[in-house]
């Protein structure tokens, strides 16, 4: 309850200050518009939180900057948000995490054509060369880093099961890289089914894996939400000692387990929702200094171990 009220007030405060200062009245203030999907699942919840926190911090650090944050529940709303920002808020830069690549390409291009700075986060546009700055996580590295951990920590002949996400290119990139990384290691993938990045679905898929396979040495849950469901299914079968689990993304509960050296969750692989902070900070640099910031900024997927986990632990974030 407390966390919600705290966040709700801070969000309201951020919004109120954002609305209270008209760009024209301040003369030289640079306005940065931020358009992201609303918090419909864990990862986006984390991303929203980091966006709000970063905007608060940047406003305090650079009084010459102003921010307009809009969250959208669907593609249409996001297009409207962006059009409104250009028409009524006179933004100088747009930081956008497109809901979908195709439908957002031409609205974002229109912003660019109007001479604004454009930063695209996480999901690329379908036409190259529109954005000035591209900030994203690395899905191939996400799969590769996980695969390398399995390769280094399992003997040839070891048997593993994999849970996939929602069938998308993003998921394919991760899984392909994972399979490539364990190729030739003698590790056998017994099963690979879709858990849709959902706890409940992962729980029942793992239950079925457990009744089907007598011997499982490790699970690549590929997502921290799915890892939670997987852990419950394993606990129910009483086979906790038999196998370890690697999730992914960087949910605080999982990071905490890694920090506490839980043998069931030895490591995690990052795909940080805080990438929105990177995008905001770097975009801000463009307006407060002469630092060249155009180009691509790909955030590596790192192996989170008990030693470095503290750097990835955000106890206040909802994710």
């Amino acid at each position, binding site marked *: *309850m407390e966390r919600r009220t705290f966040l709700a007030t801070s969000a309201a405060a951020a919004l109120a200050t954002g609305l209270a200062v008209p760009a024209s009245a301040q003369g030289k203030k640079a306005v940065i518009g931020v358009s992201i999907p609303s*918090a419909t*699942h864990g990862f986006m919840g984390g991303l929203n939180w980091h966006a709000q926190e970063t905007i608060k911090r940047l406003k305090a650090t650079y009084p010459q900057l102003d921010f307009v944050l809009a969250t959208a529940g669907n593609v249409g709303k996001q297009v409207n948000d962006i059009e409104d920002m250009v028409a009524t808020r006179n933004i100088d830069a747009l930081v956008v995490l497109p809901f979908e690549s195709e439908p957002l390409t031409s609205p974002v291009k229109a912003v660019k054509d109007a001479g604004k700075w454009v930063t695209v986060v996480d999901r690329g546009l379908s036409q190259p060369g529109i954005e000035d700055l591209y900030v994203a996580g690395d899905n191939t590295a996400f799969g590769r880093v996980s695969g390398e951990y399995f390769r280094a920590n399992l003997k040839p002949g070891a048997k593993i099961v994999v849970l996939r996400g929602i069938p998308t290119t993003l998921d394919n990139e991760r899984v392909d890289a994972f399979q490539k990384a364990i190729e030739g290691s003698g590790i056998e993938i017994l*099963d690979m*089914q879709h858990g849709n990045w959902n706890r*409940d679905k992962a729980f*029942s898929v793992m239950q*079925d894996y457990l009744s089907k396979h007598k011997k499982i040495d490790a699970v690549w849950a590929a997502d921290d939400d799915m890892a*939670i469901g997987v852990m419950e299914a394993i606990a129910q079968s009483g086979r906790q000692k038999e196998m370890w689990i690697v999730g992914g993304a960087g949910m605080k509960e999982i990071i905490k387990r890694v920090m506490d050296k839980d043998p069931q969750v030895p490591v995690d692989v990052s795909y940080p929702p805080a990438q929105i902070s990177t995008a905001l900070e770097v975009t801000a640099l463009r307006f407060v200094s002469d630092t060249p910031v155009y180009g691509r900024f790909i955030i590596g997927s790192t192996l989170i171990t008990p030693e470095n986990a503290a750097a990835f632990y955000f106890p206040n974030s*909802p994710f």
Partner: protein
Amino acid sequence: MSDAAVQKPARTAQLPGLSALGPLLALILLVVLGAFLNDNFLSQGNITNVLARSAFIGMIAVGMTFVITSGGLDLSVGSMAAFVAGVMILAMNALLPAMGVGVPLILAGMAVALVVGLLAGLANGLLVTQARIEPFIVTLGTMGIFRSLITWLADGGTISLDFAVRQLYRPVYYSGLFGIAWPILVFAVVAIAGQIAMRHTRFGRYCEAIGSNDKVARYSAVGVDGVRLMTYVLLGLLVGLATIMYVPRLGSASGSTGTLWELEAIAAVIIGGTALKGGYGRVWGTVVGVLILSLIDNILILADLVSPYLNGTIQGVIIVLAVVLQRGKSSA
């Protein structure tokens, strides 16, 4: 008139005809197929898993049978379950300092779930019967409302039950009586009570009468609005009950909890032989429908027959076949 209309199905239910056995036949075929494809299919562990998983949708589907039989529909149950779960967890976490970890706290949480479920069902029912809005529209609206409320409560993330409370509450899903898990037992009681209510009480007969012709029912002095309202309240209560069994499983609720449960529940009701346009309901058929749906999922994973991308296709084909099997025979 209403009496005559409802006496007939009551008799046929005691001696089910071939058409009524359609879904049962499909279920038996699935069980045989499963046993043939994988040795572990009939193991006690797997059977328990499948039945316990079916329990949430199952309880909701039993309630849904009454709503649909009386000519209504409720699309909001999945979101409602997520919302009830969220409120229940928040309430238990909030009461923890005052009540301490113990059975009273769990009971208080259960009471909250039932009350919130009841109120949510009451809201749906009042909008349908008093504001006279189409049930499809009302519940489409409340579906969006409950879903966004839970996302807001969870702040876009996940609401988790306090760890110590969770440890105490966990056995409600994972253990049971005489080796049968609690969710299965509760589901069985709900199903039997539902079957009796549908076949042997005035409430069940009124539901069918209203569903076949609400004007005639009204002229026959049936309190149409009252009965309709009751079906939504009953469904809300059952959503609350399902949530009570769901929360101890993962101890959390988020914006993605219970997604598409409404469609699974409605599908189970229709597979079971209840008419989507109302007028005839079959609770035991609904139970069979629920089991068919969760068995398909289970078998697809155990058997590894097709690419996981095609799982949805197989599910769709079996659902349609199960209905064709029974409609084909009933028209013959």
